[in-house]
């Protein structure tokens, strides 16, 4: 792909950065002086401005010929050592163009939504500052031209996620959830660092770097395009005894599982629902969690070189999709349902890129962003209403006696997010209901709506793929089952919330009302996109243009030769497609049967009949507890061991040296007082003794003196006479 220099691409991440910084530094003052409005306007302006710039840049990109679609903005050389340079450069190609557009669009919408949702919160300025900063970090991640800058954005989104999850930090649980997210992400970041290091090593860096200089010096780079240019070299490279591509891809997969909440590092995402709902919508549905998929898509050429890595990716994705879907079946908290749904859908995306259908994965990523955001914001609207309804009247007497025993007071009685307290909201919140329904249809894969096209593409490509070591049919099977479960539990949540009678009593019902325009407006927009976004990827089967395929073709050109598909007939394709429709309808049907208007008692019968299974799945398979017992307590015990070692061995050593020093000091003191002083005193005593001797000479008597000198004179003369002639 050719490259065109452009200035000003850096504005895209920097504008929200400025907005976030201003709100961060001065937000409190601004909010005090000019109220919430000012803070919100500042933040929305930044987001909207970045969206505008994104649109412009996208347009510019689109205006270029496909082979030329690459805009590079090189700001400066950040790191320069020897022959290796890391530039501060942003790169807009079709893939990042799509991502950027989606991120800024959904981001701006959520900013607008948040104005109403967070109204009255004293920390509004903090919220909007973090939200802007998050946008900046995500844009940096997506626009990064090299691994290092990507890592900066990677860490940045992790940080903002932590800040926003624990936004209401005064509650310990929220803070803990934020910490859990951050720490789990950190575990994944290790994978990213190791992966980048392994890549660098296999490109010629490392111990032998000097030896393999200078001819290979230009090979050492971490810029994506240039690494892709080395793909043929990397195909044959081995590092630490393994094929380089496999090692690097597995490490990057590790990193992606943490960021995109796959097995085994997904545990933070359900807890992350402790943050405000718009945050869940933006970060944990549309943008941050997709970073893992984006990373794998970026490194498509490397993944394509390693069937092992591709299989691992697809397997992880498939298993996660199924696993999360089962958990979602029994959750009561509406946000938790959506969280597990997100994990499941991300699993599908991983499966897509794992089998080599990169375009399908990105396609699903885009559509998922719209309908998941719509779902979350819809849930937010519901929670908003429920909060008003329940928050002010938590009186058990007001609750419907049919469903509960007023004598026991469960926490769920006051939880606005618990679906068991909802019901019949469709009457009170019609707009929310309609948009939520649209999004549910989309995620289930109902024809025409967005999810249908992208999901079907994934399932079809999984079926016919020849790149994984596992048969594509197995993958398809897993994917199909999870799609069925998805449809089922999504409509379960819909029916439980919006159909039937309100289960929290008439007093609370009086307070139910539709959400303000800012919220419902956004919901409408997202619902429309949930419906139509799929039309950019119409299947060729229907003899309709598939725009996204063509748009992303230049990006994935590099790996095209390596991705092989089984031969398949059109009838097979139609068959898979119809199967997907059937699955969606079946899920919808079953859910309607069991949960519509809460008529059926089958769910409660089921729960009572298989209590242990229910407990297992409801307890999320006790994975968190398992983690706590093994990894966390193991780490804690290790740290305690180290602490004990430090205290006993190191401190013992130090104290030992200290007391040895003290003893030495005492010895030295003795030496000083006995020997040195003794010597000095001895000299003085000698001097005194000598003096006392000499004093005897001073008799004071003249005769003595006369004796002495006459005697001396006599001796002198005698000596002269006798010895010296």
């Amino acid at each position, binding site marked *: 792909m050719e490259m065109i220099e452009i200035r000003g691409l850096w504005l895209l991440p920097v504008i929200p950065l400025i907005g976030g910084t201003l709100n961060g530094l001065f937000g409190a003052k601004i909010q005090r002086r000019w109220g919430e409005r000012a803070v919100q306007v500042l933040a929305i302006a930044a987001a909207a401005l970045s969206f505008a710039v994104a649109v412009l840049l996208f347009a510019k990109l689109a205006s270029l010929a496909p082979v030329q679609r690459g805009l590079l903005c090189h700001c400066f050389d950040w790191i320069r050592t020897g022959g290796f340079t890391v530039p501060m450069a942003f790169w807009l190609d079709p893939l990042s163009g799509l991502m950027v557009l989606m991120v800024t669009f959904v981001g701006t919408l959520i900013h607008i939504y948040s104005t109403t949702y967070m109204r009255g919160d004293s920390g509004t300025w903090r919220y909007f500052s973090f939200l802007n900063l998050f946008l900046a970090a995500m844009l940096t991640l997506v626009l990064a031209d090299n691994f290092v800058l990507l890592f900066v954005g990677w860490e940045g989104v992790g940080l903002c996620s932590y800040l926003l999850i624990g936004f209401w930090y005064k509650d310990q649980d929220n803070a803990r959830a934020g910490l859990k997210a951050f720490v789990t992400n950190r575990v994944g970041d290790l994978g990213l660092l190791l992966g980048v290091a392994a890549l660098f090593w296999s490109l010629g860096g490392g111990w032998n770097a000097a030896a393999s200089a200078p001819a290979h010096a230009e090979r050492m780079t971490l810029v994506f395009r240039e690494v892709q240019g080395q793909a043929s070299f990397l195909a044959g490279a081995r590092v630490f005894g393994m094929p380089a591509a496999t090692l690097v891809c597995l490490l990057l997969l590790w990193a992606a599982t943490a960021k995109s909440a796959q097995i085994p590092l997904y545990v933070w995402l359900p807890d992350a629902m402790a943050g405000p709902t718009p945050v869940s919508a933006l970060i944990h549905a549309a943008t941050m969690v997709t970073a893992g998929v984006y990373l794998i898509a970026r490194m498509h050429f490397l993944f394509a070189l390693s069937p092992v890595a591709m299989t691992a990716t697809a397997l992880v994705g498939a298993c996660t999709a199924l696993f999360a879907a089962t958990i979602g079946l029994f959750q009561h908290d509406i946000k938790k349902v959506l969280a597990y749904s997100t994990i499941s859908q991300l699993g599908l995306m991983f499966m897509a890129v794992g089998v080599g259908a990169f375009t399908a994965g990105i396609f699903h990523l885009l559509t998922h962003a719209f309908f998941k955001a719509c779902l979350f914001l819809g849930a937010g609207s519901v929670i908003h209403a429920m909060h008003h309804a329940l928050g002010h009247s938590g009186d058990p007497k007001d609750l419907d006696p049919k469903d509960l025993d007023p004598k026991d007071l469960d926490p769920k009685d006051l939880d606005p997010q618990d679906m068991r307290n909802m019901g019949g909201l469709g009457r009170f919140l019609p707009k929310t209901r309609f948009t939520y329904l649209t999004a549910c249809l989309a995620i289930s894969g109902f024809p025409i709506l967005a999810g249908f096209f992208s999901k079907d593409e994934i399932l079809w490509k999984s079926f016919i793929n020849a790149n994984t070591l596992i048969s594509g049919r197995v993958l398809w099977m897993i994917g199909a089952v999870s799609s069925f479960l998805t449809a089922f539990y999504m409509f379960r949540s819909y029916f439980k919330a919006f159909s039937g009678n309100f289960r929290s009593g008439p007093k609370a019902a009086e307070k139910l009302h539709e959400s303000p325009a800012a919220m419902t407006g956004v919901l409408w927009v997202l619902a429309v996109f949930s419906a139509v976004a799929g039309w950019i990827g119409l299947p060729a089967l229907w003899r309709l243009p598939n725009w996204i395929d063509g748009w992303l073709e230049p990006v994935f050109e590099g790996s095209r030769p390596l991705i092989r598909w089984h031969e398949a007939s059109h009838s097979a394709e139609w068959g898979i497609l119809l199967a997907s429709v059937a699955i969606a309808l079946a899920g919808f049907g079953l859910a309607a049967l069991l949960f519509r208007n809460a008529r059926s008692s089958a769910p409660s019968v089921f729960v009572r009949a298989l209590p242990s299974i229910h407990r297992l799945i409801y307890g999320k398979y006790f994975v968190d507890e398992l983690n706590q017992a093994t990894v966390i307590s193991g780490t804690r015990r290790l740290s305690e061991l180290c602490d004990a070692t430090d205290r006993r061995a190191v401190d013992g050593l130090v104290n030992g040296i200290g007391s040895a020093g003290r003893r030495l000091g005492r010895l030295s003191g003795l030496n000083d007082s006995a020997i040195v002083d003794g010597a000095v005193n001895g000299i003085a005593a000698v001097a005194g003794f000598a003096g006392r001797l000499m004093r005897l000479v001073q008799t004071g008597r003249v005769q003595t003196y006369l004796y002495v000198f*006459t005697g001396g004179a*006599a001796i002198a003369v005698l000596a002269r*006479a006798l010895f010296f002639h």
Partner: protein
Amino acid sequence: MTPSVPDLMFYAFAVLILACGALVAFSRNIVHSGFALLGVFTGVAGLFGLASATFIAAAQLIVYVGGVLVVILFAVMLTKGIGEPRRSNPMVHPVPALALSIGLTALCVLAALSFHGNAPPPEPPDSVAPLGDALLGPYLLPFEFLSLLLLAVLVGAVMTVRKEIKPGKEERA
């Protein structure tokens, strides 16, 4: 070789000197010592005369006998606490002193005897005039110094023995 008169006189004077000297040295009575000193001075004056130092002989008698001896005798008389005159000047620890002085004297005598056998030069003429010339000629400077010295001695001696007159106290005559 018969001794001539000057030789005999020499021996006589020598005996006088040595006998009186022994008295001075060994007498227990200080007055006896004092008067023996007179004999010594006189003997020495005789020796000077025999050696043709006539002026010196005269000066010896005047200065020593008439001056020093008188001063010594005055001092003897004036000092109280002399105690019993008869035992006022005993010898203390004579043995080491005798040994030392005998040794030193022996050395000196041996040295003196080395000059034995030299022929005496002829009798020089009268010495007074040449002495006067010498004193006021080449030896003028020491002569003047000596006069200064005598002045200093005079003043010093007076200073040493005068009685302090305390202010406000009349000296009793």
